């Protein structure tokens, strides 16, 4: 098994499939009266969060606790981190505490890679800067597989601010590893340079959402921050929404079976219309539940064996 999950590129197809299969077993266990498993008794998982992300932290915390791991939450606020302690010094502290795994959320891309060079335990990337968020991609893939029965051959459109999106990067890597065909859609200003060469050669790019929707099995809407307007990525929220927002008329262009995903938190009315977010095609609530199963699977596979 791999030691760290820093990037979705750490996962080959077999490993990714194993995680999804394991997540399915974990999800089945979640329906029982006794949800707790003794598997990671005596193991310590540290949630090291340099950014506020209550939903991701809670998801990891629930996953670790269901597997009986001891969980230590180390948040940037009110800790020595805000007093300017370096990541390296924090890493050495966690090392001394005997952390078996560190789940890190950090505003700087690559922070998990740096951390992994300073601690003995496993490092799990819970979102680093504008780089990656591999467990989000795993839960998204899991959601697609449970809704549509497969990933291989699926046509997935990822729509919005791809440039600043760690969710998009991880999804492109993971989904193409698993055989999906990904198209990135957004204004050219928000599509990163050389994206296909950078992530996966088969990745397509389109600036026209309407032309992509009819041949799409999964449309994944990314959060777009209105502040991007100030940096001239697009002229106005209204124009963005008109060109790239998913509203009910656009949703009707999708094939019957297609699903709508969003990693959250949503800007209702900006990238996604409320009636779309709340429709039966939307998997947004499932994604949250699947997050715990996917993260249990990752924790088990990284920590459940010989260190």
């Amino acid at each position, binding site marked *: 098994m791999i030691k760290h999950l820093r990037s979705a590129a750490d996962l080959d197809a077999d490993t990714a499939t194993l995680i999804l299969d394991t997540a399915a077993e974990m999800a089945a266990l979640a329906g029982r009266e006794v949800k707790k498993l003794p598997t990671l008794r005596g193991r310590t998982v540290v949630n090291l969060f340099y950014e506020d992300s209550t939903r991701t932290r809670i998801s990891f915390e629930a996953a670790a606790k269901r597997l009986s791991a001891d969980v230590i939450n180390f948040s940037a606020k009110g800790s020595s981190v805000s007093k300017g302690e370096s*990541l390296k010094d924090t890493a050495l502290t966690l090392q001394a505490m005997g952390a078996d795994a560190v789940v890190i959320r950090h505003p700087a891309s690559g922070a998990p890679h740096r951390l992994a060079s300073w601690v003995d335990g496993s490092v799990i990337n819970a979102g680093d800067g504008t780089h990656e968020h591999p467990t989000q991609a795993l839960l998204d893939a899991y959601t697609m597989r449970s809704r549509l029965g497969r990933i291989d051959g699926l046509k997935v459109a990822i729509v919005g601010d791809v440039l600043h999106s760690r969710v998009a990067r991880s999804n492109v890597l993971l989904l193409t590893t698993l055989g999906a065909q990904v198209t990135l859609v957004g204004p050219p200003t928000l599509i990163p340079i050389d994206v296909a060469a950078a992530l996966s050669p088969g990745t397509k790019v389109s600036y026209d959402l309407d032309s992509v929707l009819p041949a799409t099995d999964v449309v994944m809407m990314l959060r777009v921050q209105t502040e991007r307007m100030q940096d001239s990525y697009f002229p106005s929220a209204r124009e963005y929404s008109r060109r790239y927002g998913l509203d009910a008329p656009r949703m009707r262009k999708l094939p019957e079976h297609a699903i709508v995903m969003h990693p959250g938190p949503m800007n209702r009315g900006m990238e996604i219309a409320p009636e779309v977010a709340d429709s039966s095609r939307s998997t947004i609530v499932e994604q949250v539940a699947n997050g715990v199963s996917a993260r249990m699977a990752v924790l088990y596979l990284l920590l459940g064996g010989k260190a």
Partner: protein
Amino acid sequence: MKSYLIKGVSVVGGKPADLLIRDGVVAGGGGKADETIDAAGLVALPGLVDLHTHLREPGREDAETVETGSRAAALGGYTAVFAMANTSPVADTAGVVEQVWRLGREAGLVDVQPIGAVTVGLAGKQLAELGAMATSAAGVRIFSDDGHCVADPRLMRRALEYVKAFDGIIAQHAEEPRLTEGAQMHEGEVSTRLGLTGWPAVAEEAIIARDVLLAEHVGSRLHVCHVSTAGSVEVLRQAKARGVRVTAEVTPHHLLLTDELAASYDPVYKVNPPLRTAADVQALRQALVDGVIDIVATDHAPHAVEDKECEWAYARPGMVGLETALPVVLSVLGEKWELIAERMSRTPARIAGLTGHGTDLAVGSPANLTLVDPSARRVVDPAELASRSRNTPYAGTTLPGRIVATFLRGEPTVLDGKAVK
């Protein structure tokens, strides 16, 4: 003062000969001396001249001092280095440049020539007292806001014009700041994959294009620091063909390393301008051979451990380079000694108007020279560097060539590969 007879040395790649050094000058092709150095297999080069060094003093003596940087320079074969102005306080007054100049003379390992800031506090708002720095004891001729670009075109024009009065030259750090806000590495495939904000090549090329036009318009000399892209090379090639008085430098790291190294997220590879693509590296090498790029300059940028052992985005850009410059250039160009002497000694001295350096080792010339063993191979060990900082990107890399000895005005600063003081 001791005299030295260097026996059997190949002067700039020529046939083995003897070289007598006495009273600070090259005294002849043989004769009696206090000490004899067996230089069979060694190559003598005029002492190297670095137009782009950060010595960090005053202000960051934890990263480097004039003395430690001078020692690193001597060990790298240098006899003169130009100290960049981005110290704390900034070298934007006669007082600060004289202080740096004096510290250099006290260390006595290389000639430390201060570079003056173009604008007060490197702030890009108001010209510093360029004339006062020029007429100070330091005799400043090169002015640069290095680390920052003189982005305001009107200010740049004025600076180019103003320094003509004392034969000064503006060395521009070409970086359009609006195109590089938050930039972390070369913008391209790798930056996209790593999620690091891109530093586009055009941000350098646009400023160079503007500056050569400005220099042409006002008839001034322009020097372009650390050229890093193939596009910049093309702009320079055209400008030179038109007769613009522009010179340009390239760093050893831009001749060897590419942006792929950022994939480790180890900030030892973070530098400004950033490491570029393999195609850029090829274009830079060709330009250095062609003479479109005039010189190699190190951009030696020492940084304290805590400024590098951190997240990529929080790390300071820069690499130490004085002690590895010649080996890197040797590995890139091969043993083209004439070309190396031209690009690393004669031309930089000429651009700076620095007399006594970069001269042929003819009888009567100041004995500023270095002896290189081209057959030696060295694995770079950061712990062995004389620089106070360890941020070399070459740790563990085997590089050709070893500096055996360096002489400054006939006095050895390095003997047997070790600093004399």
